[in-house]
């Protein structure tokens, strides 16, 4: 039965071909450092799932943001778990992505023909940092408020356009309801959209070009 359903679907969707291309592709002999991209992908998916769940109860307004998070932590069953995974997963994702970048750099895996894979990777790391920066404000507690004050102030020190950047980040001169709602929008819509598209390109290139072997004496 299951076999029949599978072959019916496979005939129409080409599932076997997708499986062979993605999971049974040829790879050189590699080591554990080569698992960090997949680890980052897994953590990214977890962030997406737990983030969607948090949005069930979270509201991005100054009068309720903090209360809604308190409610998630104490009033909803397993709210602490969902938020905990999102909180710690965020830090872990930055860590795995960063070490992934170091691996690619030290093994010289960014070289021809994989320069564009590297460029999309840089985009992803910057977007992940953007997610971290915008997500940090959302609990609207003292720490996030002042972290964003300082962060946007740093952006404000850019010569000539600094003041413009600071105002654009904050949605005005001061940190306000406008800052919270635009950070929320960036955090759940704009960065995720960018990341989704860039991860797609990144993975397509990894599969299309294959991964490079560990450099030996000849290379």
């Amino acid at each position, binding site marked *: 039965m299951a076999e029949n359903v599978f072959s019916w679907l496979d005939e129409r969707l080409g599932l076997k071909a997708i499986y062979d291309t993605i999971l049974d592709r040829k790879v050189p002999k590699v080591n554990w450092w080569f698992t960090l991209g997949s680890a980052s992908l897994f953590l990214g998916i977890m962030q997406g799932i737990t983030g969607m769940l948090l949005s069930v109860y979270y509201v991005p307004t100054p009068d*309720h943001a903090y209360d809604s998070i308190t409610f998630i932590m104490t009033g909803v069953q*397993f709210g602490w778990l969902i938020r905990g995974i999102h909180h710690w997963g965020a830090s872990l994702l930055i860590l795995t992505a960063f070490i992934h970048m170091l691996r690619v750099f030290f093994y010289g895996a960014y070289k021809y023909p994989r320069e564009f894979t590297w460029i999309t990777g840089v985009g992803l790391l910057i977007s992940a940092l953007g997610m971290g920066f915008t997500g940090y404000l959302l609990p609207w507690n003292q720490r996030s408020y002042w972290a964003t004050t300082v962060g946007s102030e740093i952006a404000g020190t850019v010569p000539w356009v600094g003041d413009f950047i600071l105002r654009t980040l904050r949605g005005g001169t001061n940190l306000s309801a406008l800052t919270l709602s635009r950070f929320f929008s960036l955090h759940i819509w704009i960065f995720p959209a960018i990341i989704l598209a860039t991860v797609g390109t990144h993975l397509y290139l990894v599969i299309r070009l294959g991964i490079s072997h560990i450099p030996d004496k000849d290379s």
Partner: protein
Amino acid sequence: MPSKYRSPVMDRRSFVKIVTASLGSMMAAIVGLPVIQYFISPALGKTGSDDWISLGSLDNFPFDLPTLFNFNITQVNGWERSSMSYGAFVLRKEGQDPIVFSDVCTHLSCRVNWDEENKEFHCPCHNAFFDANGEVVSGPPPRPLDQYEIRLDGDQLFIHLTEG
């Protein structure tokens, strides 16, 4: 691989597949089962009330005229404290205990109004009519208007509000 290291039961590939599938399902269950609770736990929590509400002196309510009494109850829903408004129609008749109707239509919970000209309760949502005793005259409601349990303390009228 030398044959003495080779398992007679399965090859490396199927072993890795089985381990990956079981670890994956375990992780999915660890996250997935709490998610169900996460979604439904606010639906299971009791937010209801069980109070006797004072409607004041009976003298405030004229005979043979259903008179609306509005009151508010504060409830905490999640992170928000909100005021829920309730309405009760008090109907007094000479020599009888007063009857107190809920103003919530028994069809789909819109609020009914008293139409003095036709001596009927009217629900504007789906054109339902109830007579002065709360019985359905016409329209979709499945049962008469609900009545509150009452208590008289001298001339003070109380109704029993139970919810949830």
